[in-house]
């Protein structure tokens, strides 16, 4: 496997495609058609190549695999290092799968400046894959910020009426959030003397410093995830972005935050993570309950899904910081599930929007009669979003709740109310769109899904159901890695607890978290056998 630099290949293949599109010249219609097909083929080939990452990945190895290392800037000790572990491998595949779907979804929807649109989309894919596979912190930051430009253009050029405001808000929020992370990375480098994330994961930063580093990283990832109250950019970005932009945003970009929280905050700064656990719980609960209530009040369907994304990511941040097997497992699963479910829901909204050019729920109604296929697809994803057993959403929410109840009963209790609220707004949305009288003439005239849209949804439906019925197929890939992360995490907490002169803290750590890990094991197995 080491012969072919498969991670770099996957990362930069879309860029090659973008370069080809850049060079296309000629009449506008021909350019648009060629750009679309080049983008589609590039993204499909990238997806196929990325499948080799999955086949070559050894799930039983919890460390980094397929590592590529090239010296780059010896003066700063910066190298080009790439590699995947159980946490990142699924996100790479999610990026490569969603890109061709986005290209197809934009086939007719994007009418102006198709060439530039496809370039932006492919560059975005490169940046996303690059970020998930980067093992050097500078490289990571590079791609992390590199995502902003293509997304800024996607929202700003092809977005809705309020696109300029939304794109600015998106950019400045995320940029200001992450510049502090840059300072934290610098501070880490000066302390540890390296940018290699494999080393930093094991490096023991002084406790006081961890607090500051943690805060800097947390702000960056909290904006990206987004965790309440740093979520306010998201509804605007989602509403104004074109369908493909929303899909990439919800599907993959939000996961950058969750991935970063696991990689940087949990793995590198365990003591501070422990210290701030309650803060994250409060913020997650705030996200789950508050944004669910806000979603309930929306009349714009895209905005409703956007707020539901924030609520779902609240489960993720809660699950990550329970720091037990179920919670972390559930957070990972929830992230993956949300990738496909929210992407599909935005695609569904795109389908309706392309036909009627409005996102107001009141403009629709009774579509179950004239668009039965659409109704079925929408229903599946609606149920997955609500967390109905048998769909992917259930496993993720169930496991995070399980983790939360172990960590703190109250957190679990509040999070559970979010499930009810989630069901309430999603069912409301479904009722308004599909049930009732089919009395609006323009809704009556809408065509059901065409073959292209069916192909678009088919893989997503399959994944969501497979994930719901046989979750272990996904969990097996990342569980050994998560187990190692947890073991390391608890080991460093114990070490720190022993060093600290506060006996209550130490007792707290050893009595509560360590048995939890033992008890947690069989429960996790049960859950995965579901």
């Amino acid at each position, binding site marked *: 496997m080491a012969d072919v630099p498969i991670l770099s290949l996957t990362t930069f293949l879309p860029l090659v495609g973008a370069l080809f599109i850049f060079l296309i010249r000629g009449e506008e219609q021909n350019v648009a058609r060629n750009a679309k097909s080049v983008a589609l083929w590039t993204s499909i080939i990238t997806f196929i190549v990325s499948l080799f990452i999955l086949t070559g990945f050894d799930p039983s190895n919890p460390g980094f695999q397929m590592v590529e290392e090239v010296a780059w*800037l010896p*003066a700063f000790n910066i190298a080009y290092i790439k590699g995947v572990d159980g946490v990142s491998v699924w996100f790479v595949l999610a990026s490569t799968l969603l890109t061709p779907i986005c290209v197809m979804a934009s086939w007719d929807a994007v009418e102006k400046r198709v060439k530039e649109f496809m370039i932006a989309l492919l560059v975005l894919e490169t940046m996303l894959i690059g970020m998930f596979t980067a093992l050097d912190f500078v490289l990571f930051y590079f791609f992390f910020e*590199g995502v902003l*430009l293509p997304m800024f253009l996607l929202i700003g050029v092809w977005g809705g009426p309020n696109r300029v405001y939304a794109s600015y808000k998106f950019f400045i929020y995320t940029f200001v959030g992450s*510049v502090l992370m840059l*300072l934290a990375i*610098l501070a880490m480098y000066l302390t540890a003397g390296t940018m290699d994330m494999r080393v930093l994961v094991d490096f023991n930063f002084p406790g006081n410093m961890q607090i500051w580093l943690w805060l800097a990283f947390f702000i960056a990832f909290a904006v990206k995830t987004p965790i309440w109250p740093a979520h306010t950019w998201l509804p605007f970005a989602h509403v104004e972005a074109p369908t493909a932009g929303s899909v990439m945003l919800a599907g993959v970009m939000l996961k950058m935050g969750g991935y970063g929280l696991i990689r940087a905050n949990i793995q590198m700064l365990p003591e501070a993570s422990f210290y701030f656990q309650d803060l994250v719980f409060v913020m997650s609960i705030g996200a789950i309950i508050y944004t669910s209530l806000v979603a309930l009040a929306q009349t714009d369907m895209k905005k409703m899904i956007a707020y539901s994304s924030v609520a779902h990511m609240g489960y993720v941040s809660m699950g990550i910081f329970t720091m037990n097997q179920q919670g972390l497992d559930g957070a990972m699963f929830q992230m993956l599930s949300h990738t496909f479910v929210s992407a599909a829901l935005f695609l569904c909204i795109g389908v309706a929007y392309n036909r009627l050019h409005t996102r107001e729920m009141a403009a629709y109604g009774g579509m179950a009669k004239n668009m039965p296929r659409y109704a079925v697809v929408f229903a599946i994803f609606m149920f997955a979003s609500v967390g109905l057993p048998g769909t992917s959403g259930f496993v993720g929410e169930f496991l995070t709740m399980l983790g939360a109840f172990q960590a703190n009963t109250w957190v679990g209790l509040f999070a559970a109310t979010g499930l009810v609220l989630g069901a309430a707004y999603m069912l409301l949305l479904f009722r308004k769109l599909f049930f009732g009288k089919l009395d609006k003439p323009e809704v009556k005239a809408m065509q059901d899904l065409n073959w292209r849209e069916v192909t678009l949804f088919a893989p997503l439906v399959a994944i969501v159901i497979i994930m719901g019925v046989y979750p272990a197929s996904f969990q097996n890939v990342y569980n050994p890695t998560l187990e190692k992360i947890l073991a390391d995490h608890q080991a460093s907490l114990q070490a720190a607890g022993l060093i600290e002169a506060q006996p209550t803290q130490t007792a707290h750590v050893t009595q509560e978290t360590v048995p939890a890990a033992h008890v947690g094991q069989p429960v996790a197995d049960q859950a995965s056998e579901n």
Partner: protein
Amino acid sequence: MATFPDLIPALPEIFLAVAAMALLLVGVFRGEGSLRLVSWLAVAVLICTGYLAVTGPGVAERSVTFNGLFVTDPFAVFAKLLILTASGLSIILSINYLEKERVARFEYPVLVVLATLGMMGMVSANNLIALYVGLELQSLALYVLAAFKRDAAKSSEAGLKYFVLGALSSGLLLYGSSLVYGFAGTISFDRLAEVLANGPSLGVVVGMVFVAAGLAFKISAVPFHMWTPDVYEGAPTSVTSFFAVAPKVAAMTLFIRVLVGPFGDMLAQWQQVIWFCAAASMVVGALGAIQQKNIKRLMAYSSIGHIGYALVGLSAGSQEGVRGVLIYLAIYLAMNVGVFAIILSMRQNGRAVEEVADLAGLSKTHPMMAFAMAIFMWSLAGVPPAAGFWGKWAVFLPAIQSELYILAIIGVIASGISCYYYLRVIKVMYFDDVTETLDRPAPVTGVVVAAAALFVFPVYIFFLSPITSGAAAAAASLFSLR
């Protein structure tokens, strides 16, 4: 018995001085219409000077001549290369502009060459008098350049403003020098370092602050920045493009040499001054540009901000800090040359325009130019993966190392704010509709823009390592004396 000084270390400067006179003669004898010839000859002269600088003794080691007045070392060579590159590119870009503005006079390239000579003198100064001579040679040429379009009221106003304020700052600098001389008893940088090693007297501290104030004026650091937007806006655009880079690089490197060399042991005193200048420049640069509609004024505030970032590296007061400043300046040069090349080619129906709004819809009419401009804006904002990020990286790293956390936080937040106006340019080009098409840029401008854009992203990735090692060697040569 006075022995004849060794001329070899100063060969590039001597060559440049002689060549400038020769260029003047060529211009005088050829008369009107010799701008093109003199300009390209001037570029050739600058290239030769660069070659002499690179092959001279300064590359490997420090060599001093003229009784210790003049020094050349890797630090000076690095700075000179940046200055020569900036001046050469500025001359190349100016030719078409001057012809279209009907101010095609051969004195222009000659004045640029003379200013460059002054800058090289500044960079190599090893004595407060040599410093002043270099600085004044540079400044005099620049005053004339700012007022070069003498029929235009704005240009004359810019020249006058620059002259009055520049003279004031020179006065401050001279006054400071005299205080330093009075209290320390010497004006040689080497002797000053020895004398001040035992702790400075209050008089020297006051003198040093005056010298710093004079130099801060030249790099337009806050609170000595007021002239910058007006002069940038009023001066002919080609002059602005020259102002934005070469003199800044020269004054910045001189600033470094003065503070690290003779005043190196007064770190505790000057660090506070530089800290404030850096923080204030970053904030004023970020906030001031938000309301600007004229792109030259916008770039003026942008350059104030960028000088603030460069000063962050200097305020660290370490070898890594100086290295960071030099890397920053190198990247700053590439970005600014590119941006000004585009601004220089902004014309509608033959008339020069300079509002941000005039770029509306550029991505449709000139997609390549818009793309290049977007890369420059991206890089100026310091967002990876463009080159500008590395500049920020190189200066914030030593700042964190020297535990200047507050300064670093102010800096990154200011860079977040400054994103707003850089993005506005991208927004105007990409989101807005075309109002009036810009004319096609001249081929040579296109080449410079393309080269700068390719350098800023992605070719710099391969140059980063040599630039870093060059800057490191330069910084090391400065610190090896201590």
